[in-house]
């Protein structure tokens, strides 16, 4: 991978999808500030040590409409613990230097800071991409140009409900990769990989040359392996947030607990 200073976030993401040496890239998600800011930073490091190719770093929002109860609950707890966004961002830099890091948050947290100021800060931290699940195509203009100016990839989401014609328009302005939501639903663990995943990924590929990563509902390594059969990347969120919460509640250290799980996922993609 080229040094951070001379490559944009978009380039770093592309390199992560080609340089992993496995069937698919692994992108674990964490909720910043959960259980505490320090723990979440150590969790990110555990993800890297466990084999993460990219990291999706969540900034907690009080009213996350795309998230199921586990990630929503983690956001509520992070905020109850006094997590403030600026302080959390102070901790993102060291992670973003190691692997391409994408911030995942809702638009209100960006807008209240000002799009330009938020992206400038993210770029200074070395952030590679941005995932904003409440910014669909129709609202994306306010972010896309400024993200391009900062070399930050604005990752679009597509869903099983997205018709082909719309998918084409989404893919036409995509940067980084296509975040393919595998289920009609919010984030959360599902017992079986959604039927029609191959068909959905195939539909996405008709409209883009970019990598296709699949998220929402991947809860075990078997599912991750099946995702790797058809897609270029697997995104794992709720399972890991739940592991972190359970480890902490049991009086243990969440970092080694999640590292073990990330290793399992990583092996499944080999």
């Amino acid at each position, binding site marked *: 991978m080229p040094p951070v200073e001379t490559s944009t976030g978009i380039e770093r993401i592309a390199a992560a999808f080609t340089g992993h040496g496995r069937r698919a890239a692994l992108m674990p998600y964490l909720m910043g500030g959960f259980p505490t800011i320090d723990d979440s930073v150590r969790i990110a490091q555990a993800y890297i040590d466990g084999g993460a190719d990219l990291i999706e770093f969540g900034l907690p929002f009080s*009213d996350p409409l795309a998230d199921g109860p586990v990630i929503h609950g983690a956001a509520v707890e992070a905020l109850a613990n006094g997590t403030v966004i600026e302080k959390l961002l102070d901790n993102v830099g060291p992670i973003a230097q190691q692997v391409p890091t994408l911030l995942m948050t809702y638009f*209100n947290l960006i807008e209240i800071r000002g799009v330009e100021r938020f992206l400038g800060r993210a770029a200074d931290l070395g952030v590679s991409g941005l995932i904003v*699940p*409440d910014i669909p195509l129709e609202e994306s203009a306010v972010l896309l140009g400024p993200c391009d100016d900062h070399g930050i990839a604005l990752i*679009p989401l597509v869903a099983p409900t997205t018709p082909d014609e719309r998918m084409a328009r989404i893919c036409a302005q995509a940067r980084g990769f296509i975040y393919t939501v595998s289920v*009609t*639903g919010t984030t959360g663990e599902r017992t079986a990989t959604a039927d029609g995943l191959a068909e959905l990924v195939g539909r996405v590929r008709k409209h883009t040359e970019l990598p296709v990563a699949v998220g929402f509902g991947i809860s075990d390594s078997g599912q991750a392996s099946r995702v790797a059969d058809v897609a270029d990347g697997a995104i794992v969120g709720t399972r890991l947030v739940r592991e972190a919460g359970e480890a902490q509640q049991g009086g243990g250290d969440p970092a080694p607990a999640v590292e073990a799980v990330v290793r399992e996922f990583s092996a499944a993609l080999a």
Partner: protein
Amino acid sequence: MNDPEVTMRPVSRLGAHGPMEHRFGEYGGQYVPETLMPALAELESAWVAARDDTGFQAELHTLLCDYAGRPTSLYLAERLSEHLGYPVYLKREDLLHTGAHKINNALGQALLAKRIGKSRIIAETGAGQHGVATATACARLNLRCEVFMGEEDMRRQAPNVARMRLLGAEVIPVTAGSRTLKEAVSAAIRNWVETVEDTHYIIGSAVGPAPFPAMVRDLQRVIGDEARNQICDVTGRLPKRVIACVGAGSNAIGTFKAFEPDENVELIGVEAGGHGVDSGAHGATLTAGSSGILHGSRSSVLQNEDGQILEAHSISAGLDYPGVGPEHSYLRDIGRVSYFSATDTEALDALQLLCKLEGIIPALESSHALAWLLANPGGDMDLLTLSGRGDKDLAEVLRLTGDDDSPGEVG
């Protein structure tokens, strides 16, 4: 009656409305997960087709008149007028079937859901009035109904929970956060993300992603259209001021819309002042909030400096919401509507006064509009929308006024 201002206008024919606005100035929009976007597009085109369809219009009109009780009366509140020293007219939405204006919207959207082939309906509710209205519309139109309601609101509005269940709806308790309306809306939206293929979400107010704010407004504007004609008919002139309570704002936008072109009519929205706007415990989104994004649209919201949405407080479950319909934010910014607030105590006093003067028990929500009027008498002629009746609030009112002598309850 040569003044063009007092010319009567036809009560709104749905098809006569203009385009469905996605934005009201900088407010509104569609800030929702991609999964919902195709459903919103489908909803908008279905609504545009339905409102221009004379068959749909006729069916809705018949339901609103014969079933729900429209038109509602415009009532000259004589003893209240005497108390204030000038005439005050009440638009009696409290007389509607199910006890509030919510039925106007619920019947319209349920009929639309049926038209587009959705067999399951979900709704959120705060005071329970929208939940009851939706459960009622679903029973009448033979649709499955599930209502999301915060646990705290279920406690405050127990009779409405029983009514919804009796009407065949399932009431799903929401235990997140403040366990009130904000969390109930979030839970309903999340459920809709899961079930969008066979489910329509009947949102209860002129909030949410486009096309909901414009669609709900169009379904509620019958309030103001009727009231304007009635007051012109009875008095030969327009009122000096038109006053309505604002939680998320559907009865207010439905009232104001007809009077918006009447430049000499002052439009006044009254929000929940809670324990007082300076206390931090209130629902005064337009008077004390700032621009932000909540539940799919940009509007005025209550939030901290970090962008996290705050919990609202109001004695009235229907006003206990940290957001407001985007069109209200726009009408505030352009100066067409003025927004004020009334506190819990003022609303409770106003409720009791109207009971004694007029023999009308108003909803705690509507009592906020009354409270503001009592504190700010105009002296000319006012029209106030009484959005709902207060039967649902009796337990809470008796608890707070200390008149409750039932065992086990301390006031």
